[in-house]
């Protein structure tokens, strides 16, 4: 979806819930994936994703196009929520409504357990994530966005409301610190 299409859809999403649903479908996998990479915890990732989209719904009416894409805006909300989680070390669980489709709590639990098994299979990721988590939040954010989410420095700047130079400097220092963690383990 290019920026023009996104802009058009946001304006329509303010009037039509179905369009909002379409945007949700488009961005849910990316946002959930980002939060999972930041937390490496499926239950927490689900809760933070729910809160991120609820905040997006509450605020979409005042979303103004200011050279920041919807994607960056959603990443910004998600980053703030992840930071809140790390600061408080807890997160409220949002009760989600049942769908008309027969998706029971059991299905959700089974799917989560299955996903956890899948997550455990990515040992490299879990090792890396464990070390990233030892860094201050400001370094975690830039490293995950740059290397795990493959975002450009400019876009990271948009997401975190920081200048490109600051992002570069955070990346540089973050990598230094991460390297120290690896060297200390080895």
């Amino acid at each position, binding site marked *: 979806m290019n920026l023009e299409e996104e802009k058009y859809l946001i304006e329509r999403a303010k009037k039509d*819930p179905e369009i909002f649903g379409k945007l949700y479908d488009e961005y849910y996998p990316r946002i959930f994936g980002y939060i999972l990479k930041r937390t490496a915890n499926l239950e927490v990732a*689900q809760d933070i994703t*729910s809160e991120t989209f609820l905040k997006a719904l509450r605020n979409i009416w005042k979303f103004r196009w200011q050279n920041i894409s919807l994607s960056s805006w959603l990443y910004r909300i998600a980053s703030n929520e992840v930071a809140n989680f790390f600061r408080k070390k807890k997160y409220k669980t949002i009760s989600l*409504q049942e769908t008309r489709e027969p998706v029971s709590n059991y299905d*959700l639990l089974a799917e989560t357990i299955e996903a956890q098994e899948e997550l455990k299979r990515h040992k490299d990721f879990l090792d890396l994530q464990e070390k990233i988590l030892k860094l201050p939040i400001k370094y975690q954010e830039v490293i995950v966005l740059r290397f795990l989410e493959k975002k450009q420095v400019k876009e990271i700047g948009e997401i975190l409301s920081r200048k490109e130079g600051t992002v570069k400097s955070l990346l540089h220092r973050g990598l230094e610190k991460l390297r120290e963690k690896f060297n200390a383990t080895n």
Partner: protein
Amino acid sequence: MTNEDLIKKLEETSFPEIEISSHKRRLRTTLLNKYFQEKRIWEVFSILKKAIPVAVTLTILAVLIYNYLILPEYNLAQAREIVLKDPRIKEWLEEGATIKDVKILEKKAYVLVQPASIKETTIISEPQTPKIKEEFFGALVEVDFKDKKIAKIEKITPEIFPITEKEKEKVTEIFKNSPDIKEAIPEETKIVKIIPTPPPRLSIIKKGDSVEVVPEPNGENKVWVIYEQNKKQWESKVDLDNGKIESTNLVGEPGE
């Protein structure tokens, strides 16, 4: 590990492509169910956002109107009402006096009561000439809004508008040289008092924390001269600008 090794590791690590579809569906349903509720909240908020500046402006306007238009009018009306309840003032008003001016100062009102006109023969005279009664030149009434009553009534006397020594000398000079006076009045008469003619209109001015009654300039520079001999008393109205005596009257004799 070098920086390059670390970057290579970060770029080559495989990440889990996990999606919990039941969570995605349930969250979608929750969001769509909340959509209209949130939209309504936002619409109300938007209306309030627009209404608040209007409400603030209207409130300021209402306060200004109240303070500068309604409250002064109300205070004036209240001051008049309190003043009219006083029997002395009532009597003055019945005799033709009017409320000429009202000034509000903090929690007090100052009301100026003045007769419509002052008779030319009615002047305060010396104590030894009791035949000439004390007349009403006006009064300054202080009204206390807090207690809703008259705090003070101060009668106004023409002395509050004094004439200068130079004017007094000029009057004496006019009298000495006037043939009419020489003809009508015995030589031994003495000037006992020189009083400026009461100005036709007085007003109240605010002076710091108090008020003062001042004459409104009427363009005239006239005085009343009272003179007497053997308890006989005369009065003359003198125009100081022209140096002329306008009128002379006998105003009292013993035994009257």
